[in-house]
């Protein structure tokens, strides 16, 4: 698809901006630190890179500009000519040519200086060569001042040109200035075109779009043309000439018979004749505007005759309209569109492609000339047309709803339309869940058949005596073996589990069995299990073990004896007291630091408040607080390593 609009061309910088962009990019994107002590190859590489990078950037940017603009030989002749009249094709080409020459020159400079830097002996020399290279590139760019300015202007103008598609369905409106071309465009499309009562209001091409028969048409409003030779025409007029010459379209030649536009009828006819060569192979209409003022019939003999000269040959048709009273506008539009469509279809049929497609189309017909009638079921054919006023009319769901209480009350009965074997089943309740299972999961179309088959089989088996019970024989010996086997199995399982749990130690140390703590109860159990008397052992262990602490024993004794004052204290209170005592003694060993050094409640709240305030800043700035523990390195590397040149050890 050939491009028709150029709205996305990137802005073209001025030469100074261009230079700033490129050079600052070089400084940003290449390394900047180099010292004369470095190896010469490294120094050379450093500067080579700078020169190469600058050249690359220049080339890239210039190429981007060159690619952004359309190539005149690639675009549609209409656009090419339009650009020629607006921007002067030679000028345009030269500007682009200068850019591409500059690109080549910069590449050449880069090549030369890269070669020279390879022979450079010192950092200073490298640097000077780089400087010279960039300077020469900058000079070349500075010479592009004018072309860049020109291209920027072209870009801006090009972006605002209307998007005219030269191949689509087009109505082209042309004629003398001030004959009502723009007002016609306004009345048939939504284009916002300026209409003023003076000549050359429209200075360039304007496009509007409208639909006819669901097809999109474009209407193009052209600036007015004066009747003089092509060479004398100015840019404004040349635009319309370009449009007339290159666009495949219907041409609507507008005329103003009232001569309000300031040009006589004769002059208008003369113009028509002089631009007639441009109308070749196009559909042309002569449109008489402002018929609310003067109609063609009202003219005198001479003018009538002149107008007839335009219509000679029968190719050209005359139409009438008035933009002021909007009389005949749609007529003109429709007629023009109709003719255009017909012409386009005809043209399309002539092309090879149409023939190709037509060859491939085959419409199949019944053999033997049988006619196949359309089949309409009787029920449909005999159906009476629904009539609201007929008392015998069909009853609709709507009627039923109204009868049953209206919307919101009536609930539509979906079951009545069920198609079942028996109509009585329609309203049966069907459970969704039965015995905790979704009924729908078990629905099978041939469940009935399967069930019948199963039942038959069952009957058969029963008849054969398949289910008759057999005598089970089991003697005592066997039962005994079974019990023992179960016992063995269980024991094995237990051993296995124990081994497994041992393995579960993973990384922990294996404690020798002797050191493993064993409860007294465990020992007793295991002894009893193997059938030994454990009582003496247990007795001995009890006597050896340490009992409750001495304090506890004494306290217990005191409570047993009882003081006079505590006589009436119940046992419950005593236990409470002991608990409290214990807690207190534990607290006494570690003082509560929140309360240390604070005399009373008021002082404490104050201290808390101050502490909070002090913490606030630290928290806000995410500083390290006293709660953040940090151990610094005991021997910081940066303080204890390296040679000492200037300064003392303390300086570090």
């Amino acid at each position, binding site marked *: 698809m050939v491009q028709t609009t150029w709205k996305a061309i990137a802005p073209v910088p001025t030469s100074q901006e261009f230079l*700033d962009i490129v050079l*600052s990019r070089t*400084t940003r994107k290449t390394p900047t630190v180099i010292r004369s002590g470095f190896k010469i190859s490294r120094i050379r590489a450093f500067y080579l890179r700078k020169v190469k990078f600058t050249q690359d950037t220049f080339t890239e940017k210039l190429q981007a500009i060159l690619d952004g603009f359309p190539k005149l030989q690639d675009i549609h002749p209409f656009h090419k000519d339009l650009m020629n009249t607006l921007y002067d094709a030679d000028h345009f080409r030269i500007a682009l040519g200068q850019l591409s020459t500059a690109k080549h020159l910069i590449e050449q400079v880069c090549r*030369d*200086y890269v*070669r*020279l830097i*390879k*022979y*450079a*002996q010192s950092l*200073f*020399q490298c640097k*000077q*060569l780089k400087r*010279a*290279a960039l300077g020469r590139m900058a000079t070349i760019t500075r010479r592009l001042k004018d072309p860049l300015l020109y291209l920027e202007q072209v870009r801006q103008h090009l972006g*605002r*040109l*209307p*998007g005219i598609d030269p191949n689509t369905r087009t109505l082209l409106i042309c004629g003398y200035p001030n004959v009502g071309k723009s007002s016609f465009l306004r009345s048939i499309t939504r*284009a*916002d075109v*300026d209409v003023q009562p003076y000549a050359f209001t429209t*200075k*360039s*091409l*304007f*496009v509007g779009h409208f639909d006819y028969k669901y097809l999109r048409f474009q209407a193009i409003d052209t600036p007015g043309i004066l009747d003089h030779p092509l060479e004398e025409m100015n840019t404004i007029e040349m635009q319309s000439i370009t449009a007339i010459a290159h666009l495949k379209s219907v041409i609507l030649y507008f005329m103003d018979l009232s001569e309000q536009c300031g040009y006589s009828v004769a002059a208008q006819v003369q113009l028509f004749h002089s631009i007639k060569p441009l109308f070749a192979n196009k559909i042309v209409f002569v449109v008489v505007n402002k018929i609310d003022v003067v109609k063609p019939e009202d003219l005198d003999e001479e003018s009538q005759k002149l107008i007839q000269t335009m219509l000679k040959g029968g190719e050209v048709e005359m139409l009438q309209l008035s933009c002021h009273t909007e009389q005949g506008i749609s007529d003109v539009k429709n007629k023009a569109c109709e003719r255009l469509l017909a012409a386009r279809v005809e043209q399309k049929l002539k092309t090879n492609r149409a023939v190709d497609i037509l060859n491939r189309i085959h419409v199949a017909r019944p053999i033997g000339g049988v006619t196949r009638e359309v089949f309409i079921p009787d029920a449909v054919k005999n159906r009476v047309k629904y009539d609201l006023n007929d008392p015998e009319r069909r009853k609709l769901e709507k009627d039923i709803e109204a009868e049953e209480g209206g919307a919101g009350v009536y609930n539509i009965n979906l079951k009545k339309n069920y198609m079942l074997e028996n109509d009585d089943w329609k309203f049966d309740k069907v459970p969704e869940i039965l015995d905790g299972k979704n009924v729908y999961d078990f629905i099978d179309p041939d469940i009935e058949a399967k069930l019948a088959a199963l039942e038959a089989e069952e009957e058969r088996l029963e008849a054969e005596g398949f289910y008759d019970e057999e005598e089970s024989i089991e003697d005592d010996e066997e039962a005994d073996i079974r019990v023992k086997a179960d016992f063995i199995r269980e024991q094995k399982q237990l051993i296995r589990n124990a081994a497994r749990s041992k393995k579960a130690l993973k990384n922990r140390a294996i404690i020798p069995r002797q050191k493993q703590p064993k409860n007294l109860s465990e020992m007793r159990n295991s002894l009893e299990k193997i059938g030994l008397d454990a009582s003496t052992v247990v007795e001995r262990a009890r006597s050896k073990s340490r009992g409750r602490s001495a304090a506890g024993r004494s306290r217990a004794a005191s409570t047993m004896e009882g003081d006079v004052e505590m006589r009436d204290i119940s046992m419950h209170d005593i236990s409470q007291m002991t608990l409290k005592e214990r807690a207190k003694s534990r607290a006494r060993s570690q003082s509560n630091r929140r309360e240390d050094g604070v005399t009373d409640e008021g002082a404490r709240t104050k201290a808390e408040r101050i502490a909070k305030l002090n913490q606030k800043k630290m928290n806000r700035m995410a500083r390290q607080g006293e709660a953040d523990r940090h151990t610094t390195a005991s021997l910081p590397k940066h303080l204890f390593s390296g040679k000492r040149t200037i300064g003392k050890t303390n300086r570090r």
Partner: protein
Amino acid sequence: MPQNEYIERWEKLHGKRLDHEERTRKRRAREAHNSSKSAQKLHGLRAKLHAQARYKQKIQMKKQIKSHEEKSVKTSDPKPSSEPLPPYLLDRNEPKSAKALSSAIKQKRAEKAAKFSVPLPKVRGISEEEMFKVIKTGKKTAKKSWKRMITKPTFVGPDFTRRPVKYERFIRPMGLRYKKANVTHPELGVTVQLPILSVKKNPQSPMYTQLGVLTKGTIIEVNVSELGMVTTGGKVVWGRWAQITNNCENDGCVNAVLLV
């Protein structure tokens, strides 16, 4: 879609904002403040660029101010007073003529000296270490270093062929050979690129002259037939001497002044 000059059209239809004039005035008044603010913040390359631009702008401004001032000053030629001067004041005109005389003498002397002078009378000495790079030859055992490469730009004649490697003591690299020089005619003030014919004298040493080394201050012979100069006898001058004015190894080109 808006098309063609829609911006102008909109402005024509709707006009500008009511406070447009005031806004533009204020913006203009504020411009200096904004630029000062940004200038204070800039650093690095952007600061350099800004300073450069500002420097140029200031020069322009000062020039303009000066021109305005000149316009406003009413200049009037000091008219010769009608009254006759007293004799002790008549002497005031004397120094002028004396000055003219002395300058004439000076010029004469200068002209005399000019016969033996060149545009660049003094040159920086260049050591051999700087001029030559030692090239080691020989393998493993017998490492020799008798070969030299010239690190400065050179001129070699058109019919030059290198000597066999074994006998070539001085290498003049291809990349540093120059055939053309940008020659300025000091009186006409034009610069033309001319082909070099030969190296006449390198002030550093006669050996460099022989080798054709191009350094600052070297006298070269250039082909001036393009300039169309004519001798007093009416013959077209072909070769002319010129002195190199730049450090060719640093600039990547040879610039010279024609000796006239």
